[in-house]
């Protein structure tokens, strides 16, 4: 609460200058107050963490904790694994959902509620239940199947250097967010008319998808992608319980050995995620402005 004190002046300040066009002034004042409160709420823990990582009680200011990250064992591999998983998840989930949603919109509107419920379902199933199911399936592999491709598939998806099973799990977890983002994007354009106009101009279905739908769905695709990215980078439960080590699991593992470094890693991962989101969103908007 002490941190709130500096926020107080703008709040009390706002109503004081009773300017003529009172409403916008007061509105701006309130907006500022909300912004300050939100900023305090989010930035205080971050700043506190940052101070904790750079302040050594003995030597004073030091960036050792950050430098340590890069030399720590498993950092690069786990980060690359997470990014790889994120990329694979984004591609898979978009390839699965976009054609399905288009098909439902264009030729089976009555299936739309079904699709919506299916895609929202992962929100209500706790990840822990989900992972319990997955691990049961993965463990199930009777000996008489040992020589079949099925059994080998079960083994292959669990390859620790690139666990496909995590991509599958992440796709399911990302479905609700991707569905919402794409649904909003598709809702913003007259899909049926655009598709029919393109078909009328002689475009085949792949052409319609690539040249008409995707260029006009950029913001929807971008927000679906970065929601998925954020989700995959932060996903812990499934990866941990299946015994893989992407970035989020690695952070928890490393935090046991070095307190300052574990916090430094958290801040680092936060900045990294922000950076990636920023890149994705600016890429989306720049292309839109260009067009």
């Amino acid at each position: 609460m002490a941190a709130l004190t500096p926020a107080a002046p703008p709040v009390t300040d706002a109503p004081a200058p009773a300017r003529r066009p009172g409403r916008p002034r007061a509105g701006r004042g309130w907006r500022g107050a909300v912004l300050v409160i939100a900023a305090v709420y989010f930035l205080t823990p971050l700043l506190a963490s940052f101070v904790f990582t750079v302040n050594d009680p003995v030597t004073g200011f030091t960036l050792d904790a950050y430098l340590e990250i890069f030399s720590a064992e498993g950092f690069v591999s786990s980060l690359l694994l997470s990014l790889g998983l994120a990329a694979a998840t984004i591609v898979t989930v978009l390839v699965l959902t976009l054609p399905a949603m288009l098909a439902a919109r264009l030729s089976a509107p009555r299936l739309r509620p079904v699709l919506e419920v299916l895609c929202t379902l992962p929100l209500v199933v706790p990840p822990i239940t989900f992972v319990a199911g997955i691990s049961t399936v993965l463990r199930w592999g009777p000996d008489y199947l040992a020589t079949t491709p099925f059994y080998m598939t079960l083994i292959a998806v669990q390859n620790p250097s690139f666990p496909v099973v995590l991509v599958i799990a992440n796709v399911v977890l990302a479905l609700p967010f991707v569905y919402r983002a794409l649904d909003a994007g598709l809702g913003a354009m007259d899909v049926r008319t655009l598709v029919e106009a393109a078909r009328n101009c002689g475009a085949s279905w792949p052409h319609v998808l690539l040249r008409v739908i995707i260029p006009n769905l950029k913001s929807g695709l971008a927000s679906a992608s970065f929601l998925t990215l954020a989700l995959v980078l932060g996903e812990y439960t499934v990866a941990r319980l299946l015994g893989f080590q992407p970035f989020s699991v690695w952070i928890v593992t490393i935090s046991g050995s070095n307190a300052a470094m574990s916090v430094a890693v958290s801040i680092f991962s936060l900045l990294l995620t922000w950076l990636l989101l920023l890149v994705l969103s600016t890429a989306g908007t720049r292309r839109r402005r260009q067009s």
Partner: protein
Amino acid sequence: MNGAQVEFRGLRRAFGTTVALDGLDLTVAPGELIALLGPSGCGKTTALRCVAGFETPDAGAVLVGGEDITRVPANRRDAGMVFQSYSLFPNLNARDNVAFGMRVRKVPAAKRHARAAELLELVGLPSQGGRYPHQLSGGQQQRVALARALALEPSVLLLDEPLSALDAKVRVTLREEIRRLQLSLGITTIFVTHDQEEALSVADHVAVLKDGRLEQVGTPAEVYDRPATPFVAEFVGTMNHLPGRLDGDQVEVIGQRLPVHGEVPAGPDVDVLVRPETVLVTAAHDGDAEVVTASFRGASVRLRLRLADGTEVLADLPGHDATRLGPGGRAFLRLVRRPVLVAPRATAPAKVPAAGV
């Protein structure tokens, strides 16, 4: 003539329990502009979409240039379409929208740009090629859509209420331009509309549809002057329903005997269908009709008159003739001597014609 003949053969299409097309038979001659006219839900748009390939009929066939195209996918049909809602690709500028179809067919860039510029000029937008759809007005967007529909030199042009989203003035100029373009290109055009004025003013033939069936097809003058059925009479233009009494092949209506045109119903009591412009009004102090309302329309005035027996009659007369006929004025009514259409007496008591167009 670049146009092809379009033929609908026994076209049927049902959506669940709603029958949109119920055995439509219609032939469109090469190079003509035919208007499919009817109230909403009469199947006119469904018929058009069957030609475009967006709808597959349950039965029957669509023939273009004598070839059955009923099962041909939409992207391999030779028909350009302009949609009711704005259908330009938002991510492309006007030029690229027009060139879209040529790009699909891999026409070289230089050639398709030249052709797009030519088409934009044709639709009156020579300098707007670089603009994006959101920078164009509704009328301009529909012009670009028209250019896009013509870009691949189709043998049929399909217009699905292309003017209904535009304001009145633009609507009139654009429909005239569409007609001018259509005549100069000689392209077979099917124009779907629910606006009878639009249909009558631009089409070579008007096909009036009702409940998925063809009610009448004919030139605008035929459809207006000799409606084949009471429905057509009612839908195209405004109609008075006057009580009349059949007597052989003549009918007695407000003190006059007129020959009956078309089918003669059974009962002696009938409704006589009379256009407002065929009602002649003569102002007179001792006239048997009283003016209830008079609405001035510039060139003409529409009067609503009440006869002694309570029947209300709409009459159109030239604006300058009506100066003495304000509400409350009295007049004599007479009908132009020509064959009239009669319908069986509707049981509904009030026979007040709608004051529509």
